[in-house]
């Protein structure tokens, strides 16, 4: 398994654990935080499921080329970085913004949105030409 895929899979498992912890936290009487529910959902659907798919698809889909079987290396790491930095910003600032809104926190959410969106576009760019017959 390539290093990039191992990084995706391990980060997805960390997101799964964080998502489950967020789910537990919400159920503790008096401890629920506004803005935590969307963080919980996105840790599971984006940080866990989508990130696991990204890592495995980059590894297992038909090869891109002989020289770069899994597409350009920089693109793969770019997807990994934008996905996780974007998700991390969201995890921190979405609840913070719900509790105590600030201009800085607002712009951090905009950056989080942009980074997560770029991760998706990067993945599509990586695998689109690898979806082919024999």
């Amino acid at each position, binding site marked *: 398994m390539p290093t990039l895929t191992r990084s995706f899979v391990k980060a997805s498992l960390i997101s799964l654990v964080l998502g489950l912890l967020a789910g537990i936290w919400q159920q503790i009487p008096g401890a629920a935080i506004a803005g935590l529910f969307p963080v919980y959902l996105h840790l599971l*659907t984006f940080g866990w499921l989508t990130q696991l*798919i990204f890592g495995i698809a980059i590894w297992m889909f038909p090869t891109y080329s002989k020289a770069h079987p899994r597409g350009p290396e920089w693109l793969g790491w770019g997807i990994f970085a934008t996905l996780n930095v974007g998700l991390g910003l969201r995890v921190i600032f979405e609840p913070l913004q719900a509790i105590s809104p600030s201009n800085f*926190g607002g712009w951090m959410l905009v950056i989080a949105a942009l980074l*997560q*969106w770029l991760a998706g576009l990067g993945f599509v760019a990586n695998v689109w030409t690898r979806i082919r017959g024999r």
Partner: protein
Amino acid sequence: MPRLSRFFIRASLLYLVLGFTFGALILANKGILFAPLIWVLLPAHIEFVILGWLTQLALGVSFWILPRLGSQAPRGDERWSWATFVLVNFGILASALSPWINFPWLVLLARALQAVGFLAFAAGNWQRIYPPKFQNIKGLN
């Protein structure tokens, strides 16, 4: 990769782009309010990401990699799975368009199309889920 899997996976990537775009707009709008009406995109965001992207990718990959049946029709009667592709995508689009179309039964129709579509996939691929033929090979169980 079979033709139908390519259709499923490419469609799932298109839904990924749409779903992520809608989600990014909603999240950015939470940070810096620029369009209060953007929340109307939320049902389409959920539909596109959960069914359009995640579920449809799973259908495409499983149609590709589930065990084959033989050289004549390795993936069984493929018409079932083609029907799934058509029904599920009509269902997703109908559901996503429901906030803008004044037709009270549209969401019900969308869910019915999706349900029949997924049942068709199960019917078409059920027989491909079988145990390894060579039981004595270590590690296959």
